């Protein structure tokens, strides 16, 4: 997938992975991986960026004798997901313009 397009999608995918309940790094990767390719080193900057933007917060909790970071979505993160959903209609309109006249394989 095109890197620019993927960047926006991944932000939304990460937010959506923590939308219903808090989650941790490896679980987020496992949740998203079936849909879009993501690795540890891709996720890290996304989490940092979303945290800096006030979309999520991090808390450290103890899990089976070690520390694990849990990510919690903030209202700004939910707002961004809503915005993504609304924008998607425009994206679909552009998409149907781009692929007009082509027959689906």
């Amino acid at each position, binding site marked *: 997938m095109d890197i620019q397009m993927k960047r926006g999608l991944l932000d939304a995918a990460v937010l959506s992975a923590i939308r219903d309940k808090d989650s941790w790094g490896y679980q987020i990767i496992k949740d998203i991986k079936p849909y879009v390719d993501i690795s*540890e080193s891709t996720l*890290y900057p996304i989490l*940092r960026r979303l945290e800096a933007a006030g979309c999520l917060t991090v808390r450290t909790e103890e899990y089976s004798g*070690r520390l694990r970071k849990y990510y919690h979505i903030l209202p700004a993160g939910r707002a961004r997901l809503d915005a993504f959903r609304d924008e998607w209609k425009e994206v679909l309109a552009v998409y149907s313009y781009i692929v007009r006249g082509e027959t689906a394989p």
Partner: protein
Amino acid sequence: MTKTEFLSALRDELRALPEADAARSLEYYHEMIDDRMDDGMTEEEAVAAVGDPGEVAGEILREYAASEEEREGGEGIRCPRCSKVVGAENRFCPRCGYPFEKEPNSVSDHLAEPKAGGPIEAISHNAREASYDLRWYRALIWFVIWFQAFLNGLVLIDTFSAMTDSSFAGSGAESWAWTNVITTVLYIVYLVIARRALARWKKHAPCLYLISLFIPFLARVAAVTVSYITCNYFGAFGFIPLSADDIFQLVEAVVLFIPNLIYFRKRAALFTE
């Protein structure tokens, strides 16, 4: 490659980053490897899945440089070697590794300077903090807290059964019994709060936990002292020596409290994020 090798290689590659950023990256990859191992991978596989430390570090440094560029100007400093403008909190240029020698310009700056070793030492110190194996200690804390809760549960049951006794009413023991019930219930609630704080890794958790050890200790000391003095000096019941049971409990409390205090003092950084 083992987890330790991976992390120390990564730490080495990230030495140009500010301490806090490097430590955060290391914690993140540490957790990832642990989670993969919990998921059934061997250590070797888990490390391999995360990637080559050089490539991982490259990714982190690139992302860091990009976020530095997005930063608004003003508070940055310019690297004299490669003339990149970077955040003022950097001690090394993230692009070329040039060390910035900042003059300590206030007392707090001076105090904040590391005593020895510089940022590399500091980073490895942080990573060591995060890699303590807490398993056995966690089990001990849980045991101590639940055991105290259990003992207090027994005291409650005892008190209630005494209160239902036919000779209880009018014996003048009501106020004693109710004080006992209320303080015991409050103490159990306190233990639960201390346990939750520990589980959530709160800053005040060690303090709560230590106080939970100290409350029964102080109560015991007070009770023993009072009975010792009243019996031996006011002669109401004749001479009563300290029982082995009392001495044992006092020794136990000291033995539990001091190593716990030392342990938490050493690991204070784990609880203060």
